C-alpha cells in the first residue's frame, strides 16, 4: 500500500523511503517511539499530508478516493468530539456521511458509549470522549480502520475495554492499522508489528519474529576495560552497550557469540545469557538505528 513514501518538514526528515504492503484483514501495529514518524505516516495514508515522494494506495486507489468512497475510518490523535451536540447526534451525523453505515445504537453499544449517548459532547471524560471517537470512526462501517494512538491518555481499564471492542470489530474481517508506543498493545492485539524509528521501518513481522530479529538473546558479562569495538565485531553480536565494568551484548546468534567471547576474552566473568523480550527488541532495534544514523552523519562529515 505504501511505496517509497517520504516526507520532510524543513530539514527534518519525518518519514524516509517507507515501503509497506498490508493485506486485507490484517491487524497491524505501527510501533515506534515518539517522533518516529507514526502520525506523519498515518496522515499520508489518509491524504491529509501530501508525501514529498512516493505514493499511497488503499484498496488500489489514492487515499482521497478511498476516503470519498467511505472505505476508511480513522481516529486521529487530535479530534475532540464536535460541540453543541449529544453523543448520539454526533455519531448519527458521522453515519450520515457514509453510504452504508452501521446502526447507530449498535455502534454505541459495541463501543460502550450507549450509557452516555444523551450527554452533550462537551461534558465527557477522557475515556468517554475516546469511546465517542471510536464510535465515530466505526459507524461508517469502513473496510480500513486507521487508529493513531487510540488509547493515549486512557487508564488501564479503559484500554482493556477498548481493545475488547476492537476485537469484536476485527473479527468481522476489517483491516486495521494502529499506531502505538505501548509494546504490550502491539504484542497483544496485532497480527503483525511494523517497528519504525526515525521515519524508517526497522523491523516488520509477527511479534515473535521481531524478537528473533532483534537478537533473540543477550549476553551479560563483567569485562573491565574492554574495547567495545572489539566486542562489536565478534560473530553473532549485533550491538554492545557498556555499563561500567559490565557489558551487554545483544546477539543475533548468542551461541556463536558466547564461544567467540570466551575465546577472545578468557577473563570474562559473571556471564549471563538471557532470552530477549519484545521490549529489548524494541530498544535494540530503535537504538541500533540511532547508532547507524549517527555513524552515517559522522561519515558525511
Amino acid at each position, binding site marked *: 500500500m505504501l511505496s517509497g513514501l517520504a516526507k520532510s518538514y524543513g530539514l527534518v526528515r519525518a518519514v524516509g523511503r517507507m515501503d509497506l504492503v498490508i493485506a486485507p484483514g490484517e491487524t497491524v501495529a505501527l510501533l515506534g517511539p515518539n517522533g518516529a514518524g507514526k502520525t506523519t505516516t498515518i496522515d499520508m495514508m489518509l491524504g*491529509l499530508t*501530501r508525501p514529498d515522494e512516493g505514493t499511497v494506495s488503499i484498496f488500489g486507489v489514492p487515499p482521497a478516493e478511498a476516503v470519498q468512497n467511505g472505505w476508511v475510518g480513522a481516529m486521529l490523535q*487530535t*479530534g475532540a468530539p464536535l460541540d453543541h*451536540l449529544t453523543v448520539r*447526534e454526533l455519531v448519527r451525523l458521522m453515519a450520515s456521511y457514509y453510504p452504508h453505515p452501521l446502526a447507530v445504537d449498535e455502534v454505541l453499544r459495541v463501543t460502550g458509549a450507549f450509557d452516555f449517548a444523551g450527554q452533550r459532547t462537551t461534558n465527557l471524560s477522557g475515556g468517554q470522549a475516546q469511546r465517542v471517537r471510536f464510535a465515530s470512526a466505526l459507524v461508517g462501517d469502513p473496510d480500513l480502520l486507521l487508529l493513531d494512538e487510540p488509547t493515549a491518555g486512557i487508564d488501564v481499564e479503559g484500554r482493556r475495554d477498548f481493545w475488547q471492542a476492537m476485537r469484536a470489530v476485527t473479527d468481522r474481517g476489517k483491516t486495521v492499522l494502529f499506531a502505538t508506543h505501548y509494546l504490550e498493545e502491539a504484542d497483544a492485539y496485532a497480527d503483525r508489528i511494523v517497528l519504525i524509528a526515525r521515519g524508517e521501518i526497522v523491523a516488520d513481522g509477527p511479534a515473535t519474529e521481531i524478537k528473533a530479529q532483534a537478537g533473540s538473546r543477550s549476553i551479560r558479562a563483567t569485562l573491565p576495560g574492554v574495547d567495545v569495538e572489539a566486542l562489536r565485531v565478534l560473530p553473532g553480536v549485533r550491538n554492545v552497550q557498556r555499563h561500567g565494568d559490565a557489558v551487554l551484548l545483544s546477539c543475533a546468534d548468542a551461541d556463536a557469540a558466547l564461544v567467540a567471547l570466551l575465546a577472545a576474552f578468557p577473563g570474562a566473568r559473571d556471564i549471563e545469557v538471557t532470552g530477549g523480550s519484545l521490549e529489548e527488541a524494541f530498544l535494540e532495534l530503535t537504538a541500533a538505528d540511532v547508532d547507524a544514523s549517527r555513524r552515517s552523519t559522522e561519515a558525511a562529515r
Partner: protein
Amino acid sequence: MIHFRYEILRTLRNRVFYALTLALPLVLFYSVASGQRHATFNGTAFPLYFMTAMAVYGAMYAVVAPGARIARDRSRGWLRQLRITPLRAGTDFAAKAASAYLLALPTLVLLFLAGASLGVRLDAGQWLELTGLLAAGLAPFVVMGFILGYLVPVDALAAALGGVVVLFALLGGVFGFQLATSGPLFDVLKCLPSYWLVQAGKTALGGGGWPLQAWIVVVVWTVALIPAAALAYRRATSRV
C-alpha cells in the same frame, strides 16, 4: 441532509452567542435612534437611515460569525476528522453558509421591526427588495468569515472578524460618511462589496439603486474568495 440540520442546530444551541449577535445591533439602534426619532440625516428620516446602517453592520457581523465556530472546530481537530469522511467540502461550505444567513436574516428582520416601531414605513415590495439586496451583498462576507476561521488562530479570531467588519464598514460608508465621493479613491471604494451593501440600504431611502456594477462587484468578490477559502481549508486540515 442531517449535516445541514445539525449545523443549524449547533448555531441555535449556542444560545448566548446567538442572542448577543441578534441583540447587539438592536441595542445600538434603539439607544441612538430613539432619541433622534424626528431628526433627519442627509435629507432622510434618521430612524430609516440608522435602521439600514445598523442592518448592514449587524448583518455583516452575523455572516462572518460562523468563522468563529470554524476556528473552534479546527482547534478541536474536528475539521481534519471531517476531511477524512466522504462528506464533500462543498456541502460543508453550503451548510455553514446557510447557518450564516440563519444568523443574518433574523438580525435584519428584528431591526426592521425596531425601525417600524420608531415610525419607519415602507411598502411590502421595498422591505423585500431591501432584504434581498442585503442578502445578496452579504455573500462575499460569508466567505471571508470562512477564510478567517480557517487561517486565524482561535485567540486572535474575534479581533480579526471584528477588524474586517469595521474596516469594510468604514470604507463602504456604513457609518454615514464616504471617504471620497469622486475621483480615483471613489472608484476604488465602489469596488468594495460593503459600498454596495450601503447602496442596497439606500434603495429603501428612495435613492442610489443597484446597478449592474453592484452585481458584478458582489459576484466577482464571492467567486474570487471561494477558491481562497478552499485553499485555506486544505491548509487548515493538512497540519494541526
